[in-house]
Protein backbone atom coordinates (compact mmCIF):
# COMPACT_ATOMS: atom_id res chain seq x y z
CA UNK A 1 0.00 0.00 0.00
CA UNK A 2 3.07 2.16 -0.07
CA UNK A 3 3.02 2.37 -3.86
CA UNK A 4 1.71 5.43 -5.62
CA UNK A 5 -1.69 5.09 -7.24
CA UNK A 6 -0.51 6.20 -10.67
CA UNK A 7 -0.31 3.47 -13.26
CA UNK A 8 1.28 3.63 -16.68
CA UNK A 9 -0.46 1.58 -19.31
CA UNK A 10 2.06 0.40 -21.86
CA UNK A 11 1.13 -0.99 -25.24
CA UNK A 12 3.42 -3.99 -24.74
CA UNK A 13 2.72 -7.07 -26.78
CA UNK A 14 2.67 -9.39 -23.78
CA UNK A 15 -0.20 -7.45 -22.19
CA UNK A 16 -3.10 -9.32 -23.72
CA UNK A 17 -1.30 -12.63 -23.38
CA UNK A 18 -0.93 -12.03 -19.63
CA UNK A 19 -4.59 -11.13 -19.19
CA UNK A 20 -5.59 -14.21 -21.14
CA UNK A 21 -3.40 -16.49 -19.02
CA UNK A 22 -4.66 -15.07 -15.74
CA UNK A 23 -8.23 -15.56 -16.91
CA UNK A 24 -7.57 -19.10 -18.05
CA UNK A 25 -5.76 -20.20 -14.92
CA UNK A 26 -8.12 -18.51 -12.48
CA UNK A 27 -11.36 -19.13 -14.33
CA UNK A 28 -12.40 -15.64 -13.19
CA UNK A 29 -13.98 -12.82 -15.15
CA UNK A 30 -11.75 -9.89 -14.22
CA UNK A 31 -14.34 -7.38 -15.41
CA UNK A 32 -16.76 -8.44 -12.65
CA UNK A 33 -14.82 -6.41 -10.08
CA UNK A 34 -16.09 -2.88 -9.38
CA UNK A 35 -13.19 -1.98 -7.10
CA UNK A 36 -15.16 -1.60 -3.87
CA UNK A 37 -12.23 -2.79 -1.76
CA UNK A 38 -14.08 -5.37 0.37
CA UNK A 39 -11.26 -7.78 -0.43
CA UNK A 40 -8.61 -5.47 0.95
CA UNK A 41 -10.74 -4.59 3.95
CA UNK A 42 -11.18 -8.25 4.87
CA UNK A 43 -7.64 -9.39 4.10
CA UNK A 44 -5.70 -10.38 7.23
CA UNK A 45 -2.42 -10.00 5.32
CA UNK A 46 -3.12 -6.60 3.73
CA UNK A 47 -0.75 -4.89 6.16
CA UNK A 48 2.13 -6.96 4.78
CA UNK A 49 1.32 -6.26 1.15
CA UNK A 50 2.89 -3.54 -0.98
CA UNK A 51 0.04 -3.62 -3.49
CA UNK A 52 -3.44 -4.04 -2.02
CA UNK A 53 -5.60 -6.99 -3.09
CA UNK A 54 -8.06 -4.66 -4.81
CA UNK A 55 -5.28 -3.13 -6.90
CA UNK A 56 -4.02 -6.55 -7.92
CA UNK A 57 -7.29 -7.10 -9.79
CA UNK A 58 -7.00 -3.72 -11.45
CA UNK A 59 -3.38 -4.32 -12.48
CA UNK A 60 -4.23 -7.79 -13.73
CA UNK A 61 -7.04 -6.63 -15.97
CA UNK A 62 -4.82 -3.91 -17.38
CA UNK A 63 -2.28 -6.61 -18.13
CA UNK A 64 0.47 -4.92 -16.11
CA UNK A 65 2.53 -8.03 -15.59
CA UNK A 66 5.70 -6.27 -14.48
CA UNK A 67 4.00 -4.25 -11.74
CA UNK A 68 2.43 -7.42 -10.40
CA UNK A 69 5.59 -9.49 -10.70
CA UNK A 70 7.54 -6.84 -8.80
CA UNK A 71 5.06 -6.91 -5.90
CA UNK A 72 5.15 -9.27 -2.93
CA UNK A 73 1.37 -9.32 -2.57
CA UNK A 74 0.57 -12.66 -4.21
CA UNK A 75 3.32 -14.32 -2.14
CA UNK A 76 1.95 -12.91 1.12
CA UNK A 77 -1.58 -14.16 0.38
CA UNK A 78 -2.40 -17.13 2.61
CA UNK A 79 -5.36 -18.30 0.48
CA UNK A 80 -7.68 -17.83 3.47
CA UNK A 81 -10.52 -16.81 1.11
CA UNK A 82 -11.74 -13.95 3.29
CA UNK A 83 -11.77 -11.90 0.06
CA UNK A 84 -13.76 -14.49 -1.84
CA UNK A 85 -16.56 -14.98 0.69
CA UNK A 86 -16.94 -11.23 1.22
CA UNK A 87 -16.94 -10.14 -2.41
CA UNK A 88 -20.30 -8.60 -3.39
CA UNK A 89 -19.60 -9.56 -7.02
CA UNK A 90 -18.90 -13.24 -6.39
CA UNK A 91 -15.36 -12.81 -7.63
CA UNK A 92 -12.72 -15.23 -6.32
CA UNK A 93 -9.59 -13.17 -5.89
CA UNK A 94 -7.73 -16.07 -4.29
CA UNK A 95 -7.84 -17.83 -7.66
CA UNK A 96 -6.33 -14.81 -9.36
CA UNK A 97 -3.56 -14.71 -6.74
CA UNK A 98 -2.88 -18.39 -7.43
CA UNK A 99 -2.84 -17.85 -11.19
CA UNK A 100 -0.26 -15.09 -10.84
CA UNK A 101 1.86 -17.21 -8.51
CA UNK A 102 1.78 -20.08 -10.98
CA UNK A 103 2.88 -17.88 -13.87
CA UNK A 104 6.15 -17.41 -11.96
CA UNK A 105 6.43 -20.88 -10.41
CA UNK A 106 5.91 -22.58 -13.75
CA UNK A 107 9.02 -20.90 -15.06
CA UNK A 108 10.85 -23.08 -12.53
CA UNK A 109 11.42 -20.14 -10.20
CA UNK A 110 10.69 -20.98 -6.56
CA UNK A 111 9.64 -18.39 -4.01
CA UNK A 112 10.92 -20.51 -1.15
CA UNK A 113 13.71 -23.02 -1.42
CA UNK A 114 13.14 -25.95 0.96
CA UNK A 115 16.85 -26.06 1.68
CA UNK A 116 16.78 -22.42 2.81
CA UNK A 117 14.26 -23.14 5.57
CA UNK A 118 16.43 -23.56 8.69
CA UNK A 119 16.62 -27.24 9.76
CA UNK A 120 15.26 -26.36 13.19
CA UNK A 121 12.13 -24.90 11.56
CA UNK A 122 11.74 -27.89 9.26
CA UNK A 123 11.62 -30.16 12.27
CA UNK A 124 9.35 -27.84 14.22
CA UNK A 125 6.70 -26.92 11.64
CA UNK A 126 3.66 -29.20 11.42
CA UNK A 127 3.57 -31.25 8.22
CA UNK A 128 0.49 -29.40 6.90
CA UNK A 129 2.49 -26.15 7.01
CA UNK A 130 5.36 -27.65 5.02
CA UNK A 131 3.08 -29.33 2.48
CA UNK A 132 0.98 -26.19 1.93
CA UNK A 133 3.93 -23.83 1.92
CA UNK A 134 5.84 -25.87 -0.62
CA UNK A 135 2.74 -26.30 -2.79
CA UNK A 136 1.99 -22.60 -2.89
CA UNK A 137 5.53 -21.29 -3.02
CA UNK A 138 7.53 -23.79 -5.08
CA UNK A 139 6.94 -24.91 -8.64
Amino acid sequence: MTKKASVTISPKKSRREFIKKVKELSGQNLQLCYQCGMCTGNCPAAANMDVSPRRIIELARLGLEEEIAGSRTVWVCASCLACAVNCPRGFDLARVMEAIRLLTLRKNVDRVRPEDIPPQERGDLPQIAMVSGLRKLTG
Partner: protein
Amino acid sequence: MSAKQTKKKSAATAVKHRAKETAATAVKEKKQIAARLIPIYIMGKRYEVPEGLTIMKAMEYAGYILIRGCGCRGGTCGACGTFYRKPGDYKLQVALACQKTVEPDMYIAQIPFFPANRAAYDFAGLTAAPEEVFKLYPELFRCVACNSCTKACPQGIEVMDAISALKQGNITVAAQLSFDCIQCGLCTSRCFGELAQYHMFQLARRIYGARIIPRAEHLAGIVKAVNEGKYDRFLDELKGTKEAELKKLYQEREIEPMAAGEDWKPKDSRYL
Protein backbone atom coordinates in the same frame (compact mmCIF):
# COMPACT_ATOMS: atom_id res chain seq x y z
CA MET B 1 26.48 -42.07 -27.17
CA SER B 2 27.34 -44.46 -30.00
CA ALA B 3 29.20 -47.68 -29.47
CA LYS B 4 32.26 -46.18 -31.14
CA GLN B 5 32.32 -43.25 -28.78
CA THR B 6 31.87 -45.57 -25.85
CA LYS B 7 34.82 -47.60 -27.07
CA LYS B 8 36.98 -44.53 -27.34
CA LYS B 9 36.20 -43.64 -23.79
CA SER B 10 37.30 -46.95 -22.33
CA ALA B 11 41.03 -46.39 -22.19
CA ALA B 12 42.02 -48.18 -19.03
CA THR B 13 43.68 -51.54 -19.55
CA ALA B 14 41.47 -53.27 -17.05
CA VAL B 15 38.43 -52.07 -18.91
CA LYS B 16 39.92 -53.17 -22.24
CA HIS B 17 40.58 -56.55 -20.80
CA ARG B 18 37.03 -56.83 -19.65
CA ALA B 19 35.85 -55.60 -23.04
CA LYS B 20 37.76 -58.39 -24.76
CA GLU B 21 36.19 -60.92 -22.47
CA THR B 22 32.76 -59.48 -23.11
CA ALA B 23 33.25 -59.52 -26.85
CA ALA B 24 34.44 -63.10 -26.65
CA THR B 25 31.36 -64.06 -24.69
CA ALA B 26 29.15 -62.33 -27.19
CA VAL B 27 30.81 -64.13 -30.13
CA LYS B 28 30.48 -67.41 -28.31
CA GLU B 29 26.82 -66.70 -27.73
CA LYS B 30 26.40 -65.84 -31.40
CA LYS B 31 27.72 -69.27 -32.31
CA GLN B 32 25.94 -71.20 -29.63
CA ILE B 33 22.55 -69.69 -30.03
CA ALA B 34 21.34 -70.41 -33.45
CA ALA B 35 18.50 -68.31 -32.18
CA ARG B 36 16.16 -66.14 -34.11
CA LEU B 37 17.27 -62.54 -34.36
CA ILE B 38 14.84 -59.94 -33.17
CA PRO B 39 14.92 -56.16 -33.65
CA ILE B 40 15.42 -53.90 -30.66
CA TYR B 41 16.16 -50.19 -30.45
CA ILE B 42 18.93 -49.01 -28.14
CA MET B 43 18.72 -45.27 -27.59
CA GLY B 44 16.76 -45.04 -30.82
CA LYS B 45 19.06 -47.13 -33.04
CA ARG B 46 17.89 -50.44 -34.46
CA TYR B 47 19.87 -53.62 -33.76
CA GLU B 48 19.17 -57.27 -34.49
CA VAL B 49 19.96 -59.41 -31.49
CA PRO B 50 19.34 -63.06 -30.65
CA GLU B 51 16.19 -63.58 -28.68
CA GLY B 52 16.65 -64.90 -25.20
CA LEU B 53 19.42 -62.47 -24.24
CA THR B 54 18.98 -60.09 -21.36
CA ILE B 55 18.86 -56.41 -22.25
CA MET B 56 22.38 -56.08 -20.90
CA LYS B 57 23.76 -58.94 -22.96
CA ALA B 58 21.89 -57.71 -26.01
CA MET B 59 23.54 -54.32 -25.64
CA GLU B 60 26.92 -55.99 -25.44
CA TYR B 61 26.04 -58.14 -28.44
CA ALA B 62 25.23 -54.92 -30.30
CA GLY B 63 28.70 -53.64 -29.53
CA TYR B 64 28.29 -51.63 -26.36
CA ILE B 65 30.98 -51.93 -23.76
CA LEU B 66 29.39 -51.23 -20.44
CA ILE B 67 31.69 -49.53 -17.99
CA ARG B 68 28.80 -47.87 -16.12
CA GLY B 69 25.27 -49.12 -15.81
CA CYS B 70 26.33 -52.65 -15.01
CA GLY B 71 27.49 -54.15 -11.78
CA CYS B 72 26.50 -57.40 -10.15
CA ARG B 73 24.64 -58.78 -13.18
CA GLY B 74 22.49 -60.54 -10.64
CA GLY B 75 19.66 -58.11 -10.03
CA THR B 76 20.79 -56.78 -6.71
CA CYS B 77 23.21 -53.88 -7.21
CA GLY B 78 20.83 -51.40 -8.82
CA ALA B 79 23.28 -50.16 -11.46
CA CYS B 80 21.32 -51.13 -14.56
CA GLY B 81 17.91 -49.54 -14.18
CA THR B 82 16.31 -49.33 -17.60
CA PHE B 83 13.26 -47.80 -19.20
CA TYR B 84 11.67 -49.25 -22.30
CA ARG B 85 8.56 -48.92 -24.39
CA LYS B 86 6.87 -51.13 -26.96
CA PRO B 87 5.42 -49.58 -30.11
CA GLY B 88 1.77 -48.65 -29.81
CA ASP B 89 1.81 -48.75 -26.02
CA TYR B 90 1.92 -45.43 -24.17
CA LYS B 91 2.96 -47.19 -20.95
CA LEU B 92 6.53 -46.74 -19.87
CA GLN B 93 8.04 -50.01 -18.66
CA VAL B 94 10.90 -50.52 -16.25
CA ALA B 95 13.40 -53.29 -15.82
CA LEU B 96 16.85 -54.15 -14.66
CA ALA B 97 18.90 -54.65 -17.82
CA CYS B 98 20.62 -57.69 -16.35
CA GLN B 99 17.31 -59.40 -15.52
CA LYS B 100 14.90 -58.67 -18.34
CA THR B 101 15.11 -60.60 -21.59
CA VAL B 102 14.69 -58.64 -24.79
CA GLU B 103 11.40 -58.57 -26.63
CA PRO B 104 10.88 -57.62 -30.27
CA ASP B 105 10.68 -53.87 -30.96
CA MET B 106 11.63 -52.78 -27.48
CA TYR B 107 12.84 -49.19 -27.32
CA ILE B 108 15.48 -49.17 -24.62
CA ALA B 109 17.28 -46.49 -22.63
CA GLN B 110 19.36 -47.39 -19.64
CA ILE B 111 19.53 -44.89 -16.79
CA PRO B 112 22.82 -45.81 -15.13
CA PHE B 113 22.69 -42.80 -12.86
CA PHE B 114 20.25 -40.04 -12.06
CA PRO B 115 21.16 -36.87 -10.16
CA ALA B 116 19.57 -36.98 -6.70
CA ASN B 117 19.82 -34.80 -3.63
CA ARG B 118 21.45 -36.77 -0.83
CA ALA B 119 21.57 -35.09 2.56
CA ALA B 120 24.79 -35.10 4.55
CA TYR B 121 24.38 -36.13 8.16
CA ASP B 122 26.28 -37.47 11.11
CA PHE B 123 24.32 -40.59 11.90
CA ALA B 124 25.55 -40.73 15.50
CA GLY B 125 23.59 -37.56 16.19
CA LEU B 126 20.27 -38.80 14.75
CA THR B 127 17.39 -40.06 16.87
CA ALA B 128 14.35 -42.13 15.85
CA ALA B 129 12.11 -39.03 15.69
CA PRO B 130 10.16 -38.45 12.46
CA GLU B 131 11.50 -34.89 12.43
CA GLU B 132 14.98 -36.19 11.54
CA VAL B 133 13.68 -36.99 8.07
CA PHE B 134 11.79 -33.69 7.79
CA LYS B 135 14.96 -31.79 8.66
CA LEU B 136 17.21 -33.58 6.19
CA TYR B 137 14.74 -33.88 3.34
CA PRO B 138 12.22 -31.01 3.51
CA GLU B 139 11.36 -31.54 -0.17
CA LEU B 140 9.60 -34.71 1.02
CA PHE B 141 6.54 -32.49 1.40
CA ARG B 142 6.44 -31.75 -2.34
CA CYS B 143 5.07 -35.21 -3.09
CA VAL B 144 1.74 -34.97 -4.92
CA ALA B 145 0.84 -38.66 -4.64
CA CYS B 146 0.95 -39.07 -8.42
CA ASN B 147 2.29 -42.61 -7.97
CA SER B 148 4.81 -42.30 -10.82
CA CYS B 149 7.51 -43.56 -8.45
CA THR B 150 5.67 -46.79 -7.70
CA LYS B 151 5.08 -47.37 -11.40
CA ALA B 152 8.80 -46.85 -12.06
CA CYS B 153 10.09 -49.30 -9.46
CA PRO B 154 11.66 -52.44 -10.97
CA GLN B 155 11.53 -54.01 -7.51
CA GLY B 156 7.77 -53.65 -7.16
CA ILE B 157 8.07 -51.47 -4.08
CA GLU B 158 5.08 -49.35 -3.10
CA VAL B 159 7.28 -46.28 -3.31
CA MET B 160 4.49 -43.74 -2.93
CA ASP B 161 3.14 -45.52 0.14
CA ALA B 162 6.59 -45.47 1.70
CA ILE B 163 6.87 -41.73 1.02
CA SER B 164 3.41 -41.29 2.56
CA ALA B 165 4.64 -43.14 5.62
CA LEU B 166 7.58 -40.77 5.95
CA LYS B 167 5.27 -37.77 5.69
CA GLN B 168 3.15 -39.31 8.40
CA GLY B 169 6.26 -39.68 10.53
CA ASN B 170 6.23 -43.46 10.33
CA ILE B 171 9.87 -44.42 9.77
CA THR B 172 9.18 -48.06 10.57
CA VAL B 173 6.63 -48.50 7.77
CA ALA B 174 8.84 -46.61 5.31
CA ALA B 175 11.80 -48.82 6.15
CA GLN B 176 9.78 -52.02 5.88
CA LEU B 177 8.07 -51.08 2.62
CA SER B 178 11.36 -50.03 1.02
CA PHE B 179 13.35 -53.05 2.21
CA ASP B 180 13.89 -54.38 -1.34
CA CYS B 181 15.14 -51.04 -2.69
CA ILE B 182 18.35 -51.41 -4.67
CA GLN B 183 18.83 -47.66 -5.12
CA CYS B 184 18.57 -47.73 -8.92
CA GLY B 185 17.07 -44.24 -8.91
CA LEU B 186 14.31 -44.83 -11.47
CA CYS B 187 11.71 -43.48 -9.01
CA THR B 188 13.71 -40.30 -8.67
CA SER B 189 13.91 -39.87 -12.42
CA ARG B 190 10.12 -39.90 -12.65
CA CYS B 191 9.25 -37.80 -9.60
CA PHE B 192 7.00 -34.79 -10.16
CA GLY B 193 8.00 -33.34 -6.80
CA GLU B 194 11.72 -33.81 -7.52
CA LEU B 195 12.25 -36.04 -4.49
CA ALA B 196 15.13 -38.48 -4.14
CA GLN B 197 13.03 -41.28 -2.70
CA TYR B 198 15.76 -43.85 -2.49
CA HIS B 199 18.05 -41.68 -0.39
CA MET B 200 15.17 -40.91 1.96
CA PHE B 201 14.44 -44.61 2.27
CA GLN B 202 18.05 -45.38 3.01
CA LEU B 203 17.94 -42.87 5.84
CA ALA B 204 14.70 -44.46 7.06
CA ARG B 205 16.22 -47.93 7.01
CA ARG B 206 19.32 -46.74 8.81
CA ILE B 207 17.26 -45.12 11.53
CA TYR B 208 14.99 -48.16 11.70
CA GLY B 209 17.91 -50.56 11.90
CA ALA B 210 19.92 -48.62 14.43
CA ARG B 211 17.30 -46.92 16.58
CA ILE B 212 13.95 -48.67 16.25
CA ILE B 213 14.07 -52.46 15.87
CA PRO B 214 14.99 -54.30 19.04
CA ARG B 215 18.55 -55.55 19.24
CA ALA B 216 19.10 -59.25 18.48
CA GLU B 217 19.75 -60.70 21.89
CA HIS B 218 22.10 -63.45 20.73
CA LEU B 219 24.31 -61.04 18.79
CA ALA B 220 26.28 -59.84 21.80
CA GLY B 221 27.16 -63.42 22.69
CA ILE B 222 28.43 -64.17 19.20
CA VAL B 223 30.48 -60.96 19.05
CA LYS B 224 32.01 -61.89 22.38
CA ALA B 225 32.87 -65.36 21.12
CA VAL B 226 34.46 -63.88 17.98
CA ASN B 227 36.50 -61.47 20.05
CA GLU B 228 37.61 -64.26 22.34
CA GLY B 229 39.03 -66.08 19.34
CA LYS B 230 36.56 -68.95 19.17
CA TYR B 231 36.62 -68.93 15.37
CA ASP B 232 40.31 -68.10 14.79
CA ARG B 233 41.20 -71.73 14.27
CA PHE B 234 38.65 -72.12 11.45
CA LEU B 235 39.76 -68.93 9.77
CA ASP B 236 43.40 -70.02 9.91
CA GLU B 237 42.35 -73.30 8.37
CA LEU B 238 40.68 -71.48 5.48
CA LYS B 239 43.66 -69.19 4.98
CA GLY B 240 45.85 -72.23 4.46
CA THR B 241 43.54 -73.76 1.89
CA LYS B 242 44.38 -73.81 -1.84
CA GLU B 243 42.17 -71.80 -4.19
CA ALA B 244 40.73 -74.81 -5.95
CA GLU B 245 39.76 -76.39 -2.65
CA LEU B 246 38.29 -73.10 -1.47
CA LYS B 247 36.15 -72.90 -4.58
CA LYS B 248 34.93 -76.42 -4.03
CA LEU B 249 34.11 -75.69 -0.41
CA TYR B 250 32.20 -72.63 -1.48
CA GLN B 251 30.25 -74.46 -4.17
CA GLU B 252 29.34 -77.28 -1.84
CA ARG B 253 28.52 -75.18 1.19
CA GLU B 254 25.30 -75.97 2.97
CA ILE B 255 22.72 -73.24 2.64
CA GLU B 256 19.93 -72.69 5.12
CA PRO B 257 16.66 -73.52 3.33
CA MET B 258 14.24 -70.65 2.81
CA ALA B 259 11.58 -72.28 4.92
CA ALA B 260 13.92 -73.32 7.72
CA GLY B 261 12.51 -73.06 11.22
CA GLU B 262 14.10 -71.40 14.23
CA ASP B 263 15.66 -74.69 15.30
CA TRP B 264 17.41 -75.38 11.97
CA LYS B 265 21.03 -76.53 12.32
CA PRO B 266 23.60 -77.30 9.60
CA LYS B 267 24.68 -80.91 9.22
CA ASP B 268 28.26 -79.94 9.84
CA SER B 269 28.11 -78.52 13.35
CA ARG B 270 31.85 -78.13 13.94
CA TYR B 271 31.65 -74.35 13.75
CA LEU B 272 28.72 -73.82 16.07
